[in-house]
C-alpha cells in the first residue's frame, strides 16, 4: 500500500507492506536512525516520536496508521545548528549516559512539556513512566525536564 508521511518536514512516500512498523519506516526507509528500538512492546519508549504533536511509541504503531501524519523525530529538533532547549537541558544536566533511551526520553519530554509546561517533580516522574532508562536512575533526567521547562518558558 502507498502511504505518505511527513518526517521532520520532509515528505516520504512509499509503497509498503501493511504490516510495516512505523519505527522501521522511520529507520529503514527514511534513514533516520536516531529513533531506537528497545523492547517491541511499548514498555521502554526508546522509539518515541511525535505524531501530530503527540508522543507515540513507533514500535507498536503501523506505518499505515500514521499515513498522512506529521512526525517529528529527535533529528528534527535542532534548528540551524542550534540545539532544542530540551536537548540542551539533557546535556547540561547529565541526563544521559549510554544515550540509547535518550531520543525517546527527549521526545517524551517534548510531548510532556507541551501538555504540561510547568510540571511538578511527581508529574515529571509519572510523565516519564513510559520510558525506561537503565543508566541514570532517572534523577538527572527529571532534572533535565525541569531545566527544559524553564528554558521553554523563557
Amino acid at each position: 500500500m502507498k502511504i505518505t508521511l511527513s518526517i521532520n518536514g520532509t515528505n516520504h512516500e512509499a509503497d509498503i507492506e501493511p504490516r510495516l512498523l512505523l519505527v522501521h519506516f522511520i529507520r529503514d526507509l527514511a534513514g533516520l536512525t536516531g529513533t531506537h528500538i528497545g523492547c517491541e512492546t511499548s514498555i521502554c519508549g526508546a522509539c518515541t516520536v511525535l505524531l501530530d504533536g503527540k508522543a507515540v511509541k513507533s514500535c507498536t504503531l503501523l506505518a499505515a496508521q500514521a499515513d498522512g501524519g506529521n512526525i517529528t523525530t529527535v533529528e528534527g529538533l535542532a534548528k540551524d545548528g542550534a540545539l532544542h532547549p530540551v536537548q540542551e537541558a539533557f546535556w547540561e544536566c547529565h541526563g544521559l549516559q549510554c544515550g540509547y533511551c535518550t531520543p525517546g526520553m527527549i521526545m517524551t519530554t517534548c510531548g510532556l512539556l507541551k501538555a504540561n509546561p510547568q510540571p511538578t517533580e511527581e508529574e515529571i516522574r509519572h510523565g516519564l513512566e513510559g520510558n525506561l532508562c537503565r543508566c541514570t536512575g532517572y534523577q538527572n533526567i527529571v532534572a533535565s525536564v525541569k531545566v527544559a521547562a524553564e528554558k521553554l518558558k523563557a
Partner: protein
Amino acid sequence: MSFLAKYIGQKVKRTEDPRLIQGLGHYVDDIVLADTQSVVILRSPYAHAKINAIDVSAARMSPGVVAIYTGADVAGKIGNVPCAAALPELKVPPYPVLAQGKVIFAGQPVAAIVAKDKYQARDAADLIEVDYEPMDVIADTERAAQPGAPVIHEQFGTNIAFHHSAGTGDIDAAFAQADRVITQKLNHQRLAPISIEPRGVLAQYFPGEGQLNLWSSTQIPHLMRTQVAIMLGVAENKVRVVAPEVGGGFGCKLNVYAEEALLGWIAMQIKKPVKWIEGRRENLAGTIHGRSQIGTVQVAVKNDGTLLGLKYDVIADMGAYLQLLTPAIPTLTGLMLSGCYKIPAISMQCTGVFTNKMSTDAYRGAGRPEATYLVERLMNCVAQELGMDPIDLRRKNFPKPEEFPFPTATGLFYDSGDYEQALEKAMKMADYQKMREEQAAARAEGRVMGVGVSTYVEICAMGPSAALPAGGWESATVRVEPTGKVTVLTGISPHGQGEETAFAQIVGDMLGVDLDDVLVIHGDTAIVQYGIGTFGSRGLAVGGAALAIATDKVVKKARTLAAHLLGADEASLTFENGRFLGAPDDRSMSIQEVALAAHTAASIPEDFEPGLMATHFFEPKNFTFPSGTHIAQVEIDRETGDVKILRYIAVDDCGNQINPMIVAGQVHGGIAQGLAQALFEEVVYDENGQLLTGELMDYAVPKAHQLPHYELDHTVTPSPVNPLGAKGVGEAGTIGSTPCMANAVIDALAPFGVRHVDMPLRPEKLWRLMK
C-alpha cells in the same frame, strides 16, 4: 606528574552528548552497509529436549530467504562458545553456536535464517519444523546438586560443575569461641542486566583480502577479536571488531556469544554483509543473567558484637552452559566476604551447578553484590540478636584508617579507606537519630516505617593480571598530531561511562591543551592497540592510569625536543599550561610547536625518534577497594504492601574524582539497579524451565516514579594503586544499595516478627507478612 588542574575535578559537560542527544550516534543497528542481509535466530522453546529432526524445506522456499543454517551445517566449522574462567577441576561442557542434537535451555539457538529483510527472515523462521523430544528438566538450583536430579551434561554424570573453597583463618576455633552463632539462609535471586540497547552484530567479509569485519555491541572488542578468530580458525589480524556506540552493558556485553562467530561465518559463506539485532524476548532468554546464589551464612560473634568468623555454604547457579566468566563470578563473592569488617576467620564452600536455564555471568557488581548483601544482611541479623544498633555493630568492627593496607581472611589487602568517616557523614546527612525518632512515632501510630543502612566495600579496578583469566592491564596511546591536535587510543571500551570526556580532561590538563583538541578513540581493534575493555569498574583506575603514564611519556619526549630547540637544559625547563618555559633567553615553546617540530624533524637530537606519541600498558599491582555508607528510610503501605522510599542517602568513596558530575551519574544509576534488585526484579523460570519473565511487561525494570531522589556526598581516600588515586565507581551504587534497601524494609517489618525476607521485596510478599 605535575600540572595545573583546569579540567580535572570539574563537572565538565560530556563531549559524547551532542551526537547522542541529536540521534546522530551510531549503534550497531544504525550502521548501514549496502546489500546487508538480515539474520534471525530460531531458538528452542524447550528447556531440555532431544532434537530428532529439523525440516527447513518450507522455510527455504519462503520469499527472500538466502540461506538457513542448523547445527549440522556448522558442526566442526565454528568452534565452541568460550569459557575463559579457570577453576580446579572445572567441568566445561562444549557450547555449540547452534544446538547439536539437543537443547538444554529455552532460548538456545537452533537455526539461523538469512533473508533479504528482517520481516522475511522472521516469516521463514516460523516455517521451520523442529521435532523436539522433551526431556526431564532441572530448573531448581538446589535440587540440581542433589542425587537423582536429571543430568544435563551426561558426560559428567552430575550437574555439579565445580567445588570452590575460599577463606583463611581457624574457622572451627572461631565458632568454638563464639558466644553466639547467627545463621540465615539467603536466596540471591537471578537478575537480567537489560541494557536498553539489546545485543547486535553486523558482519562483513572481504574475500579478496580475507578480512572479516564485525561490529558488535560489546564491552570487550579486543578479547572478542581473539575469541572469534579462534572460533572461526581465521588469523586474528584478519578480524576487525568494532564496538560502535554501545547502549549500555552492565556486564551482559562482557562476553562472547554464539552470534558473533555465527554472523562472521555466515558473512564468509554468502559474501554479503549480515546483521542480527537481538529482540527483547531473545535478550531475556539468551543474554546472560546475573546473581543466582542460594546459601546459608553463619556468623560467629561475641556478646559485645565482636565478629569472630563467617561461613558461607552456597550453591551457585551456572545455568546450562559456561559463558566467558560464569564460574568466576562466585569466586568474587568469596573474596569479599569480609565486607568492611575485621573478621579473623572466613570460609566459603561453593558448589556451582548446571541447570536448564540461561547462563549466569557478570552483571553490574558481579559476585560482590552477593557478598555485600549477605554480610550486610547478617550484620543486621546479628545486631537484632544482640539488641545492638546496627550502626554501632558496624562501627565496632571497622578497621581503622591506619590499618590500611588492610589484610582480610579472604587473602586481600584493601588499598585504603576510612569507613568511619563515610558512616559519620551519611548519618549526619540522614540525621539518623531523627529518622529513628520518626520511626518510633510512626510505629506508635501503627505505621510501618524502617531505616536501613549498609556499609560496603567492593573490589574494583580489575585488576592484577595474575588474578584474571585474560590479563588485567590496560593500554593507552597518546599522539600529538603535527597540527597539535591530540589523539588518544584507549584499550577500554566505554558504553555510557563518559570516558571520552574524562580522558580528555586528564590529557587536556597534563598537556595543557584545550579539551576540544583531544579526541579519544576506543572500541576499534583496527585502530587501537590491544586492550582489555570496560568492566569491573576499571576504565579510569586501570585505563586512565595507562593514559596518565602515556601522557607523561609524551611530555618527557616533548621536553627533550623543546630543550634541544630552545638550547636549554631539559632539567631547567618547566612545563606549564602547555608551554615549555625557562630557556636562557626567555624563549618558550608550546606543545603544539614541539609536535610540529617532532614531525618535520628538521632539527632533532641525535637519538630522537621523530613523531610525538607514546604508548603505555599499565599493570596494576593490586585491586582498588571503593567503599561507602548508604542509608534509606522507607514506609510500607499496610494496605498494599507498597514500599515508599522516603529518603535515600549515599556517601561513596571512589578515591580521586576526575569528573564529579559523571561520578554522581554512575552512583545514581548504580543505586537504581541495586534498588531494583531489592524491590522489583527477578528472572523467574517455572519447573519446566520456561522463562516466565520473558518480556519487559513481566520483568520489572523500575520506572522513574518508582525510584527516589538520591542524596549524595562522598569522601576521598585516594588509592595508592595507580597514579590517579582513582578507585572506580561503576558498580559501587549497585553494591551498596541492595542490602541498604533490604535492611530498611526488613527493619520496618520487625514489629511483625520478621528477621529476614528474600528479595525481591514486592508488595504482595510484604502485604502477606503484615497480615
